[in-house]
């Protein structure tokens, strides 16, 4: 997976509503992302299409909601 550039990261953060982050916090984002992308790269993505995520909607959870 190619390393995400600083400009790409700025666009991603802007899409999350952080387009006005002060410069010092943008530096924190860059630092954090350099560690995060290693973790993202290790997340297995090659799965059968039917593999469900750990938390799916369970209707019975809400049947007795008070």
């Amino acid at each position, binding site marked *: 997976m190619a390393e995400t550039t600083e400009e790409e*990261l700025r666009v*991603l*953060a802007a899409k*999350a*509503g*952080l387009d006005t*982050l*002060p410069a010092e*916090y943008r530096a*924190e*984002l860059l*630092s*954090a*992302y350099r*560690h*995060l992308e*290693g*973790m*993202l790269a*290790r*997340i*297995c*993505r090659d*799965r059968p299409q039917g*593999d*469900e*995520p*750990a*938390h799916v909607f369970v209707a019975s*959870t*809400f049947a*007795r*909601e*008070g």
Partner: protein
Amino acid sequence: MAEFLTIAEAAKRIAAKQLSPVELLQDCLARIDAVDGKLNSFVTLTRERALGEAKAAEAAIMAGQYRGALHGIPYNLKDIFETKGIRTTGQSRTLSDYVPAEDCDAQAKLAAAGGVLVGKAATWEFAHGGPSWDVLFPPCRNPWDLDKDPAGSSSGSGASIAAGMVLGTMGSDTGGSIRGPANANGIAGLKPTYGRVSRRGVLPNCFTHDHAGPLAWTVEDLAILMNIVAGFDPRDPGSVDLPVPDYTAGIGDGVKGLTIGVPYRWIEEEAPASAVTRAALDAALSTFEAMGATIRPVELPTLRSYEDAKKVIAMAELYTIHGPEMRKNPEKFGASLRYRIIAGSVIRAEDYIQAMRMRTELARAMQTAFKDVDLMVLPAGEPAKTLEPQPPESLFTKIGYTTAFNVGGNPALAMCMGFSPDGMPLGLQIAGRLWDETTVLRAGHAYERATPWRDRRPALVA
């Protein structure tokens, strides 16, 4: 100072009208007044309210209306547990004036059982980033050595139990936040099965991994607290409607015939335990063997894989929770938490869902491993280190022994397994099958009875 009592010991005396709840509270308040200025384990002290509750408990008991083992017992709550009419801050400047209108489920149950709420305990900011010196309150310190870290995020809960300032408390555990402080402070702490104890009214950290659970001086006291706080809550979407056992019944049945698995690859190869921790673990395993348990190795996926899946999920959920405030007032967050929230802003939906699919696989692997063993035993962590700011990126680099059981949802207990040469507690972890807190507590109680570790308190209060 007055003698130290466990919940079980105090309850017996209170029920027999040999101990006044007011006197018990006053002993706790005297310890708080004497040492908490050094420890910072309380962020809010509810002295007058507690005195009122203790007097009411005493009057009720004298009138023959004893409610059970928590009646008249002083406790506190991590300051992410919402308390009606009492400020609940999450240690964050973003909630410095927040006074909830309703009690969380745990507080409602503990109050109904007649407990005496002494106050709110220090945490890391929103139970996540820390230790921090740039949030609403200073960080809590370790009563065994004030220069050492009490660990987090249930820091104040752990320190206040070890120092005998309260007899019970509730914390939360998303990756080890009950078990870490139990390890560092030499006490007992239980992360129950996901869904066993309601999190309604507990400020969220990571919805899919947050657990609420008790901390106390002994394992038996955890069982007493579990009898009060466990149970289905239809207002917690993660709560599960299953029968709740009596956790104190059979707690003395021992470990004879149980099979204990040890994930040697984790503690020898992937995250090698220190020599002192390994020696204490080996001694603990010998103790279990001597009591009739069988020890065998157990194989699991890597610690790193559990950490990766959990942290990607956790940071995405963290941004979901704190994004609105971060967009408006980023300067209100401490640097440690802010670093993690900001990172969560750029995790894409596919990343999050792929991590959740990976969690399915990892949780299944955990339950498969438990088909061959009744329990797993391993260290809870390493002895407490110096209390000092941690580089924010340590979140990504460190690997611990606790997170895998949050991913699996399994119950896991941390308790004292001795002391390092410099007098700091060492922590044992006992994990069990889903919903089987009973066997976990039974094993912990047996180990506690077979070892002398409950005879020692921090010199600060001894």
